[in-house]
């Protein structure tokens, strides 16, 4: 019975129980302070525990040697998220917990399928085409929400196809770069004082850049565009080691962003509000100002769960959920959450380092980069470190497609970590 003895899995269980205890206390406190039925708290905590203990058991059987931290970190962040959503918008909590359950089942399926993740590289152009279709579907079929056109309405379910597209592009880029990275690292032509590789090898990369711009222009989605471009740069840098790609890419992105500032009023608004939200405190700056007030009122230990006023922030349960955490759990809670993400990211990169093949290495790097960029962009946006772009906070924000895709991301990282070449220690 090898799986009963696994050191990693025992550690995972211990950490998982620790996370679940913290979450349960959170549910208990919220029930007390917001005068909500303790039964619901029990039900939600139970659902969460079932999902993650179930996944833990699956890990024991399927991927005994997988990374021991990722699952507990996911339990912690999605648990805090669920507590906050229940406390902020009680009637959304059951939908969110359902999505977590569905996500857990998806992980199971993904784990079974992804145990041989190397096969994924055989379909690299399929991934590319699927990604492009998913990305651009909303332009023709989507509905507009909050100035951005990101959503597909499929009967009762509406989702953001860009969430799925991210993972498709990670597969494509990993497969493509693994194959071409030698060629891309060799410069044969000199142009504008720079050594460039053969143009035909650069073609697909130029396509990626174009895609990012198209998202920005046609879907008006600054956040997703930034995410794709950042993912692309991170992967190409890791694959080729050419700083030239990075500096060229950053210059291109800045050029594109500056152009957008002058062309699109909503981009301009976002930027101006970031510089000084008080230019329109009751209007365009309202949401950010309310978030800043919420964070400021938290102090070291926060107001206590259920005792702050985070509901003053519009749409707090999605993009701004971190502001609610910072208000009610204070600097301690906020830093704990940030560190949980950083730990997740460092484990992701560690998995990339110890993967047994370059494809696995690049996939893990890509997935971790997407995750890190997304977490940074929204955490930085809600705390006014950078201009706000509407993306969800992985695992914590309310929303089905975000939960699902980040759970698939987790499954892939776990699967890669189980196939590592050397020890994770």
């Amino acid at each position: 019975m090898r799986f009963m003895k696994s050191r990693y899995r025992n550690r995972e269980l211990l950490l998982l129980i620790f996370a679940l205890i913290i979450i349960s206390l959170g549910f208990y406190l919220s029930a007390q302070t917001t005068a909500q039925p303790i039964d619901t708290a029990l039900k939600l905590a139970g659902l969460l525990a079932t999902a993650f203990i179930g996944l833990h058991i699956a890990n024991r059987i399927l991927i005994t040697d997988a990374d021991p931290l990722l699952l507990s970190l996911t339990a912690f962040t999605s648990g805090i998220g669920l507590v906050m959503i229940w406390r902020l918008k009680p009637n959304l909590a059951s939908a969110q917990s359902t999505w977590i359950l569905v996500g857990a089942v998806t992980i199971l399926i993904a784990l079974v399928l992804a145990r041989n993740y190397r096969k994924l590289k055989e379909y690299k152009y399929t991934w590319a085409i699927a990604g492009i279709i998913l990305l651009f579907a909303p332009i023709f079929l989507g509905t507009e929400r909050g100035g951005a056109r990101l959503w597909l309405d499929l009967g009762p379910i509406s989702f953001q196809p860009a969430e799925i597209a991210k993972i498709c592009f990670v597969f494509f880029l990993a497969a493509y770069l693994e194959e071409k990275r030698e060629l891309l690292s060799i410069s044969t032509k000199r142009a504008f004082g720079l050594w460039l590789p053969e143009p035909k090898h650069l073609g697909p990369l130029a396509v990626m850049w174009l895609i990012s711009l198209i998202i920005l222009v046609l879907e008006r989605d600054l956040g997703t565009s930034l995410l794709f471009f950042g993912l692309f740069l991170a992967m190409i840098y890791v694959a080729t080691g050419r700083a030239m790609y990075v500096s060229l890419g950053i210059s291109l992105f800045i050029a594109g962003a500056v152009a957008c500032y002058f062309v699109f009023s909503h981009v301009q608004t976002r930027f101006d509000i970031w510089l000084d939200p008080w230019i329109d405190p009751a209007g365009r700056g309202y949401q950010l100002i309310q978030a800043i007030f919420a964070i400021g009122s938290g102090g070291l230990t926060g107001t206590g769960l259920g005792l702050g006023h985070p509901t003053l922030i519009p749409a707090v349960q999605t993009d701004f959920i971190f502001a609610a955490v910072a208000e009610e759990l204070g600097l301690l809670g906020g830093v704990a959450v940030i560190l949980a993400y950083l730990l997740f990211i460092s484990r992701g990169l560690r998995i990339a380092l110890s993967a047994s093949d370059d494809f696995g290495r690049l996939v893990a790097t890509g997935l971790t980069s997407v995750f890190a960029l997304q977490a940074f962009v929204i955490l930085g946006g809600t705390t006014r470190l950078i201009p706000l772009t509407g993306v969800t906070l992985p695992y914590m924000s309310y929303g089905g497609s975000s939960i699902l895709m980040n759970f698939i991301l987790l499954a892939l990282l776990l699967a890669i970590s189980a196939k590592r070449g050397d020890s994770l220690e």
Partner: protein
Amino acid sequence: MIRLNKRIARLGIVFITAFILLIVNLTYMQFIASAKLTAKPENIRPVLYERRIERGTIISADGKVLATSRKQDDSYTRVYPEGELAAHITGFYSSRYGRAGLELTYDDYLSGQSKVSSPDDYMKRLLGEEEPGNDLTLTLDMNLQSIASKALGLRKGAIVVLDPKTGAVLALVGWPRFDPNTLDDKWKSIAENPEGALLNRATQGRFTPGSSFKIVTAAAAIESGAVTPATVYEAPAQLKIYGGKVSNYGNKGFGRISFEEAFIKSVNTVFAQVGKNLGGQKLVDASEAFGINGEIPFDLPTAKSSVPEASEMDDLEVAWMAVGQGRAAVSPLMMALVGAAVANDGEIMQPYLVVKASERDGTAVFAREPRPWLCPISKNTAAVLKSLMEQVVAKGTGKSAQIPGVRVAGKTGTAEVGKGEPHAWFVGFAPVDNPEVIVAVIVENGGTGGSTAAPIAKQIIAALLGKNH
């Protein structure tokens, strides 16, 4: 492969740097910028937090609730069951317009905003079970307050009623006033009332004292030993001093009279001579001995009563100051305390309104013992002044304060104020042999002290002593 790993590690450093920036920024926002953000006018959180706390109740000495918090849905609203009657004492507590009165001075007790001091407190806060604020018990007698308020009626003015033996304030009335229950709705009309409805005239009003100030002049004269009640003065209708003149009320001459008679009939030309003989410095010193030119330690904001510095006055102004005219300006509370010195054998007890602050279960967290404040005159001087003041009521300008069977002492004042009717003053106490109450009354532009202010004091004294005897 090794080079690939190096680059992944570099990517990791970029991410770690970015997330450390997040933490630094968060620390800045939650620690350094926090207070600044809370103070922003757009931030309604401070108001929302306070509404969640059940503020303490303010209760009068006779058990009437003056201010209390009522729960509505999730938050508390402040209610003042006595409405206007105690408005200047309780003050108000408004999320929009701040707070005033006892709601302001005793905010720490009422809000129970004591800092978290034990793990137990912290757990309670975590669970949102914050302790209600402390209740305040006052010296105020609402029955007397209501009688005093009715006696003043809708006339601009103020009344202060204290127990001279303890300094306890029994009633404190001013008009115009406001209803703290409708403050938020009627703020504009209340705040912009040209007569100053928000001004607590009893403690913050500054008025020319007129002849009621002769208590101070007489005290200085008798203390100096230069004057006794029997000292005789010429009392013409007008007295010329340095090209100016001091005249009697109604331009009446009295011939040769004693100081006693001059006090009883409030003869200005005699007091002008007394003041001139004493000199400005002695007059100012005597005033300051009573607390004028200083702050009165009190539970409510007070205006500083003042007389000019001696060096700033010529003989004419000194003479006018001796009769309570000129630049002297006093609050009704100050005049009550001047009277209290006479009533209490020369010693002024510190005035107070709040007897104690207590927790819901009755445990007192703050309790007040009466304590002496100033001792401006000797016991002998006090006794002399007492008999002078008794005669004012018995046969002088204060006859309308007489109460059958009670020995009342007092001094009237009729302060000329440029245009319109003079301010009517009366400062009196009773019973003379064992004073239980001192009353200071001012009715702005009310006419003579004897005809307007003394009858008000009489009603209050009669009501209080009638109840006690």
